[in-house]
């Protein structure tokens, strides 16, 4: 089985993150960049499947030059090789355009299974898995907290607010995962030392047959026109545990429609 894992480099969600003042895109230059957290779970799931069923695991990243740091880190966990789509024209791409690039790269690779994180910590749109599956004409099993593979048949437990749904499909398919699915491994020292020696293929838009105008700002279906910082949090409402503390609390909860 050939598994392609989508890995995105994002600004560390634990540190200060900003949008650029000139074009409202994510400021990647001044941020400390890491692998999108959910993608580590996708990598882990792919490696576990490979350990159980054999086959090959390929990392696929669309991103600027410096995304190679994240690709190297992903490879140090154990995947066999990586594909990096890098092109200046991609800057400013919307989710629809990004899905076009990813789908083209996946189609070129040929994959039995595509695994990705359910969302990225910078964009948080959660639409990419569906868009990619739609473009490729394959099943989308999204939001998995558990994945089982039996030959060509796939079953996931799809995490919902109330519980979970059991969804099945057959390969080729795409599965997006939440962080409840596994515990990602740490790269071993041998894995770290081997990462740089693994095959890394760099592709441009031209290699995928996509014109520059179809992506980036020119091809964007949506653009951020303005942004501002979230206002600082207001001081909370303090209710003293005095005589009327209880009724005040109920009043507050009722006013906020919590009860």
């Amino acid at each position, binding site marked *: 089985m050939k598994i392609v894992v989508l890995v995105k480099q994002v600004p560390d969600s634990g540190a200060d993150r900003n949008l650029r003042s000139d074009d409202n895109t994510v400021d990647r230059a001044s941020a400390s960049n890491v692998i999108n957290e959910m993608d580590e779970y996708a990598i882990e799931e792919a490696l576990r499947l490979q350990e159980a069923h054999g086959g090959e695991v390929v990392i696929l990243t669309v991103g600027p030059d410096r995304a190679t740091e994240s690709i*190297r*880190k992903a490879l*140090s966990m154990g995947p066999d090789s990586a594909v990096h789509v890098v092109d200046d024209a991609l800057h400013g791409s919307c989710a629809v355009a990004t899905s076009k690039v990813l789908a083209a790269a996946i189609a070129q690779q040929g994959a039995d299974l595509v695994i990705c994180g359910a969302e990225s910590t910078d964009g948080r749109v959660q639409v990419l898995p569906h868009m990619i599956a739609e473009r490729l004409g394959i099943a989308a099993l999204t939001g998995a907290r558990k994945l089982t593979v039996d030959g060509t048949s796939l079953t996931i437990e799809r995490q919902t607010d109330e519980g979970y749904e059991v969804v099945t499909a057959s390969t080729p398919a795409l599965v997006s995962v939440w962080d409840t699915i596994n515990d990602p491994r*740490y*790269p071993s*020292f*041998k894995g*770290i*030392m081997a*990462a740089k020696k693994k095959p890394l293929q760099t592709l441009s838009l031209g290699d995928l047959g996509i014109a520059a105008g179809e992506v980036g700002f020119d091809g964007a279906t949506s653009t951020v026109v303005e942004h501002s910082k979230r206002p600082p949090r207001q001081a909370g409402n303090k209710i003293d545990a005095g005589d009327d503390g209880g009724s005040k609390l109920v009043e507050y909860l009722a006013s906020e429609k919590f009860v």
Partner: protein
Amino acid sequence: MDFDYTSEQQDLRDAVAKLGKRYGHEYFVRKAKAGEHSDELWDEAARLGYLGVSVPEEFGGGGGGITELAIVCEELAAAGAPLLLLVVSPAIAATIVSRHGTAAQRARWLPGFADGTRKVCFAITEPDAGSNFHKLSTVARRDGDDYVITGRKVYISGVDECSQVVVVARMADERTGKLKPALFMVPTDAPGLTLSKLDMEIVSPENQFLLFFDEVRVPAADLIGEDPEAGLPALFSGLNPERITVAAMACGTARYALERASTYTATRSVWGRPIGSHQGVAHPMAHAHIQVELARLMVAKAAALYDAGRDLEAGVNANMAKYASAEASALAVDTAIQAHGGNGMTTEYGVATLLGATRAGRIAPVSREMILNFVAQHLMGQEKSY
């Protein structure tokens, strides 16, 4: 001059930091207070190959150097969960075996160091020979196919969790009768060897012991190097890795303490604004941060020289790195406690828990006075005072 670590070293640093954070200082303190060891952390780090980074690849190790091992030591300490025995087992014992063991000894012992399943402690200090190891009185004599060891060792770390201990004894030269150091790999459960745990004022999952050797028999094949001449160079080969890794660990602990302090002072407010806005609080932290960064630079330099095979220069720098990092970490912990006020002395805030260990860093494995003696005498041409 290049101040960047390689991408592999940087990735190792990130990976170890992540692992260390999952355990954290709370784990470390819980283990110490329960009288338990950091077995889970040791085993997990071992499985990932982090403890065998400096063991040659042909024996299953990572094939890296002391730079890599120092990174592992520093990052675990920076997460609040140092592993003291890294300084003894992979740094001292594995280096001695790797550089001075016979081919058979290397094949026998190094694979266990590589995968972390072999934990070995190191015993040189004696009640009457600490700073002055020329006064060692533990002796070994040849008896048939064995050596027989008699003597005492003190403050030996981790004996209860190690399968073997490298013992520095003295042996009479067959021709001249002069006593020379000889190093033996001795099982910690050898007949005639008794341990007595010392009560130390250090919060640490590792313990120190007093060891009595009463006619302990060791096969000749366990004399490291199998040649009485191998003793002195073998002993010296362990000292640089020891100093560099202990210094790296101290830097990590210092970073941990200052991170706790700066997080606290950024939010704790006494006069209507964060106490970190008072220079009386912020400047000591900034000062300590600078001392720690200077020490880290010295550790990196000493490790780079050592890995380049420049042992003599590495020795000078390892000593200075050890001195600087012990001072910086003692300062950092003291500063962090002060910045926390009363909370600084609680167990919960996890800074006073570091007092004993960082204070001991000024004494062990070589005291600050002995390093100052060394620098004054060898680098500044002053007359020996002792």
